[in-house]
């Protein structure tokens, strides 16, 4: 039974509530949306993960400070896909992270993952959730290949974008470099059993065969094992001119150390998994010297345009960035630009709208204009090659100075 006094109270409460809601909408001019990040912050790749996170943080901080999107702030929500038991990225953890991202309605786009194995686990979940992600470093081509669309984007539209090119270019272009520049005639190929490692080693091997390089064998390393002397002794007995390793640091570090003892004179190279400070600090010199490594992006460190970025980065984080810090920064710029365009068009900032905006993005970034093809791959396909050579005046872990830039690997 509603008494008169009760009714008066009710009306008063409703009025207060309406006023409160009204003030909320008035302040909604400063809406906050979240940008997810998935990186391998625990495990063997933690150092590069931190640089990726720093790159994203920097781009968001700059945008928020400059009010780049009027009335909208972007907030970073980081997720770690590394686990102690795996010792590196763990696809199961990456899948869990993808589910968490999808279930947080405020996340409108994401950056990551670093690793292709994580990407393969995340892509189908993100596709179902309609959440676009831009990877700064995962290069396995299957994830964006339309042949595997049913597996990696079951919901249809591409949601996996990249600010690096793929191993469909990184592996083959390195094979071209081995054949054309280094004049290699025979090679042994190893991988680390991961999605990235197997994929890049496969594409390297296929192109090397096409270029007339003799493949003397192919084997797979267990990244948790410590001893690779058996396989290295076998390689020594086969006497190849070169060794190509597809994989990341966990096996790569041990391989480089033992290869220096057993096959010191063989030309040794790998993909972007062998590009990073672990090669310099954990392997050390002289064992690390001479290794070739590639990255699936143009070399920007030392570029004048990148210099401002590098200076600001060092000022903020007191450590040197690397090329994948830049691709992470660029990926974030693409997201900021896309959110901005959606907001400017007057449409609500939804995942779907942001995804569509990313698809049609033409953003001027540090690496140049970034745009994506119909599958989400970067339009630019540059692969850069480096060789480890000690710079006596540089800090031991300084990637930009102890990896000497050789050039762009020849395109097929």
């Amino acid at each position, binding site marked *: 039974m509603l008494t008169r006094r009760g009714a008066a109270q009710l009306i008063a409460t409703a009025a207060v509530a309406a006023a409160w809601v009204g003030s909320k909408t008035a302040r909604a001019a400063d809406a906050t949306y979240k940008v997810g990040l998935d990186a391998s912050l625990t*495990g063997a790749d933690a150092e590069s993960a931190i640089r990726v996170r720093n790159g994203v943080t920097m781009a968001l901080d700059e945008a928020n400070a400059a009010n780049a999107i009027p009335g909208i702030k972007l907030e970073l929500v980081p997720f770690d896909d590394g686990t*102690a038991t795996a010792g590196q990225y763990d696809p199961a953890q990456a899948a869990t992270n993808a589910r968490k991202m999808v279930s947080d309605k405020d996340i409108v786009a994401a950056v990551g993952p670093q690793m292709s194995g994580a990407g393969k686990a995340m892509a189908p979940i993100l596709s179902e959730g309609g959440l676009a992600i831009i990877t700064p470093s995962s290069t396995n081509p299957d994830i964006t290949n339309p042949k595997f669309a049913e597996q990696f984007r079951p919901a249809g539209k591409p949601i996996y974008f990249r600010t690096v090119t793929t191993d469909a270019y990184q592996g083959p272009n390195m094979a071209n470099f081995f054949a054309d520049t280094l004049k290699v005639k025979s090679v042994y190929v190893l991988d680390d059993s991961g999605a990235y490692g197997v994929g890049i080693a496969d594409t390297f091997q296929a192109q090397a065969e096409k270029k007339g390089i003799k493949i003397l064998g192919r084997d797979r390393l*267990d990244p948790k094992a*410590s001893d690779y002397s058996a396989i290295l*002794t076998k390689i020594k007995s086969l006497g190849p001119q070169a060794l190509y390793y597809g994989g990341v640091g966990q096996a790569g*570090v041990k391989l480089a150390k033992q290869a220096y003892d*057993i096959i010191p004179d063989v030309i040794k190279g790998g993909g972007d998994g062998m590009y990073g400070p672990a090669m310099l600090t954990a392997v050390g*010199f002289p064992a690390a010297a001479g290794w070739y490594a590639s990255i699936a992006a143009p070399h920007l460190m030392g570029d004048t345009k990148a210099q401002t970025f590098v200076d600001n980065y060092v000022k903020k984080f007191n450590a040197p960035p690397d090329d994948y810090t830049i691709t992470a920064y660029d990926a974030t710029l693409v997201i900021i630009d896309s959110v901005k365009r959606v907001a400017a068009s007057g449409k609500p900032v939804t995942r779907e709208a942001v995804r569509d905006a990313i698809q049609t993005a033409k953003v001027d970034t540090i690496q140049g204009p970034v745009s994506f093809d119909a599958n989400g791959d970067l339009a630019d396909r540059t692969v850069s090659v480096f060789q480890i050579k000690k710079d006596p005046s540089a800090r031991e872990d300084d990637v930009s100075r102890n990896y000497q830039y050789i050039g762009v690997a020849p395109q097929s």
Partner: protein
Amino acid sequence: MTNFDLLLQQTINGLSLGAMYALLALGFTLVYGILELINFSHFNVFMVGSFVAMATLQAFGLNGQQVILTGLPLAGVLLVAFAVTMTVSGALGVLIERLSLRPLRNVKGPAAMITTIGVSYILFNIVLLYEGADAKNFPNPMPAVRFHLGGAVLDLRVVLIWIVASLLMAGLWLFVQKSRIGKAMRATAQDPEAARMMGVEVDRVIITAFFLGSALAGAGGLIFGLYYNFTSFIIGFTAGLRAFTAAVLGGIGNVPGAMVGGLIIGMIEAMGGQFIATAWTDVIIFSILVLVLVFKPAGLFGRLAPNKS
């Protein structure tokens, strides 16, 4: 390389691996022989040992492979490193027994074994948190001296590993066979009740077993670092699992069995990598284990309970 050189080289590789597995396997076997407990914390006592060894070597000012010592300084540094590493690892083993296993001594069922798995993860995560996840460049002061046997190469480090591992194992064998406490250990292994009635201090025996096993694991950790020039928080798992397999293969609870089992697993790993493929190493190792256990359920040298010395 001729085929003979290749076989010789892979034998050298296999024996080095085997020596390390044997040192680790002894720890499993010592504890199992007395408590019938599979001590999974042993995996990471080995790993902690390699970090203790690294810290000790670094305390001498050694960094990476930059500082090379010879002669007496080298011998001195290595001796101190072995002494410190083995003492600290042994003490860690005793601590684990005292804190987490003794309270469960009379609990039936898998509680104690599960506890050792838990302790293993605690050690693993402590090192991960304090030392970080990246692989560490292990200091190695040994000069890169190499002997060429035909096409095969024998590294000075390898010779040292063999000598140290043999000395440690011979020492352990003598200790168990000849010393008073060693005899008490064998008596406890055979029949703990009877041993207790005859006046054997079972607690002391158990502590000794943990100390010796863990000290050997620590020595294994140091040898591992010197051999591979690296260490990381994750090295315990693969090495521990293979060493455990070696202990079972040789007959768990049996000291010579652990040594032989270690060498066999090391040789399988080397030869498998050469003639089949490295990717198949675990499949080969565990298939052989299954085969051996089907025909000799107690392992190569083991005898089935109740008499399991």
